[in-house]
């Protein structure tokens, strides 16, 4: 479903992604972890063309991402993304946030879009706040609305870019619960996160990155119990050390 082949990316002289090879199959739940600055976010942001790359090929849903704007639009319609900072539209109500893209991009009728939006809000258990503005919600609620917003486009692939990193500790669980539920429903997920408990629970594969490279790819069982690479061992030791 997603196929990175020898992807390289530079920010100026900084080599952000080095020879990335990665394949994600339909229904897989891939967790990407690693120290900060290791290129995790850059990697998943390439998938919906929020970042470009200088060499290599990337195919998403059998569409090859290149400079053609049409391929980018095509890919974005089947790939949803949840951001660290939620990025809800502050001038629109929750419902308007959810129905904007279905109406404007998918040309859905407002009635159908509203119906779909309410269904997705129920799915993330936040339907009672449908008419509020984002600023009236807590961080956890905002992030759940953001998840519902991407679900309204009925994406085949969901990308999560550190979805719980900007949340107060007491709100992390409500977002993770929603993500766990999505994971059990068979949607393809790629998730950058530091929540190792969550990773253990839902991941079909864990990818460890450092300095722009994929250091290790393993099943969660092997990853946590028998990490091969010394960098992985050091990373896990630090995480589990408190």
């Amino acid at each position, binding site marked *: 479903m997603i196929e990175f082949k020898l992807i390289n990316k530079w920010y100026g002289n900084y080599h952000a992604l080095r020879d990335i090879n990665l394949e994600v199959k339909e229904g897989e739940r891939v967790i990407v972890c690693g120290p900060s600055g290791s290129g995790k976010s850059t990697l998943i942001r390439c998938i919906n063309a929020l970042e470009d790359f200088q060499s290599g090929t990337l195919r998403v849903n059998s569409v090859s991402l290149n400079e053609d704007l049409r391929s980018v639009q095509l890919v974005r319609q089947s790939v949803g993304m949840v951001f660290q900072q939620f990025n809800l539209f502050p001038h629109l109500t929750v419902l308007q946030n959810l129905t*904007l893209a279905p109406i404007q991009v998918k040309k859905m009728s407002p009635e159908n879009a509203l119906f779909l939006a309410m269904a997705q809000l129920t799915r993330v258990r936040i339907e009672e706040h449908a008419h509020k503005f984002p600023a009236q919600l807590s961080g956890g609620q905002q992030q759940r609305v953001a998840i519902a917003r991407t679900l309204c486009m009925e994406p085949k692939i969901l990308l999560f870019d550190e979805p719980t990193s900007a949340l107060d500790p007491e709100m992390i*669980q409500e977002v993770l619960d929603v993500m766990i539920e999505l994971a059990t429903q068979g949607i393809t997920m790629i998730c950058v996160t530091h929540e190792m408990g969550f990773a253990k629970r839902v991941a079909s594969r864990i990818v460890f990155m450092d300095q722009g490279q994929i250091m290790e790819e393993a099943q969660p069982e092997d990853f946590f119990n028998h990490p091969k690479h010394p960098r992985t061992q050091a990373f896990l030791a630090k995480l589990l050390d408190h």
Partner: protein
Amino acid sequence: MHDHLHRAKSTKVSTHYLKSQNPPKKIRSWSTLIHLTRLEFKQHPVQGALSMILLVLVILSGLAFLNWGVFNAVFISDEAACQLARSTGACWGMIAEKYRLILWGRFPFEEQWRPLTSVVLILLTLSLSCVGTLWRPAYRQWLYLSWVWCAAIFEILMSGTFFGIDIGLGLAKVETDLWGGLPLTLLLSIVSIALATPLGILLALARTSDMPMIKTLAVTYIELVRGVPLISVLFMASFMFPLLMPGLQSPDVLLRVLAGITLFSAAYTAEVVRAGLLSVGAGQLEAAQSLGLGYWKTQRFVVLPQALAHVLPGLVNNFISIFKDTSLVTIVSLYELTGALGLALNGDAIWRPFKLEGYLFIGLIYFCFCFALSHLSQNFNKASQTTPKMSA
């Protein structure tokens, strides 16, 4: 690191003892005002003394103005009385004598009910636009429609034709160079505000775009126009066109002047809008893009509503300055409000000494419109549905 899995269970804590209390009531009355003033004096004696001196000065000059403008003033159009009261009292009689020339300029005297009706019409539409509820999406189209009608009726009343076509109302044709006074001021400012705003938005989008060609063009245009005084733009619009396009029938001077003011104001509007565009975070763009929205839809539904709401004070500032800048069209012999005042007095030896009263009169008119404009902008703000303040 597993503790978050247990967090959910421990959240159900009884909170009945956290009874919320109402904030203390704010008392606003004269006695508190006096109390606060006294407190201020006690804590900041120097500032207090300064405000006291200022207050006395304001009261004194206010009294002097009342004396001049009301008690010693002449309210009837009596030349001898005005001469007598000169330097001690105002001569409002001058306005009674000249108001038609000031308000309607050189418009044919017998036909002056037409500019009067036009202005009333504009005022009605303008006050309609001041009603906040009419800006709601459900009614907004009616408001736009009423402006279209207003424009059409204005054109018919003022020119006697519909853009040159005789529609058989039996109105005498009046060329645009005879239009003047208040209707001209309103026409120039409303049309150039209405056109300069979308043009300015496009210019701002062009200037912030990634495409080097478009960006360079926009930057060049904005810098060029901002580097030139409006008066020279108007002069060029009026006199250069025939030179630049020889052989072509040049359009009406009013149209050329309108185009001049619009193009000029668009450059300023563009910079205000650009500030707004830059204030919208990159995350908003990314969210819109990741949902599959294209460039124009991202701008229209996500970026611009936020950007314009952020820079509304700057935009209104800009509108007000366009409104007052229209007084410069006198340079190309169009006599709007300010020009018409000059027209009314400069050639008249009897009433010329009372120009101050005239300026106060048109100043009051300008003020009323600027005040209405800033009131109108608050409705725009409500209509754009910006984030409400946190109420929790």
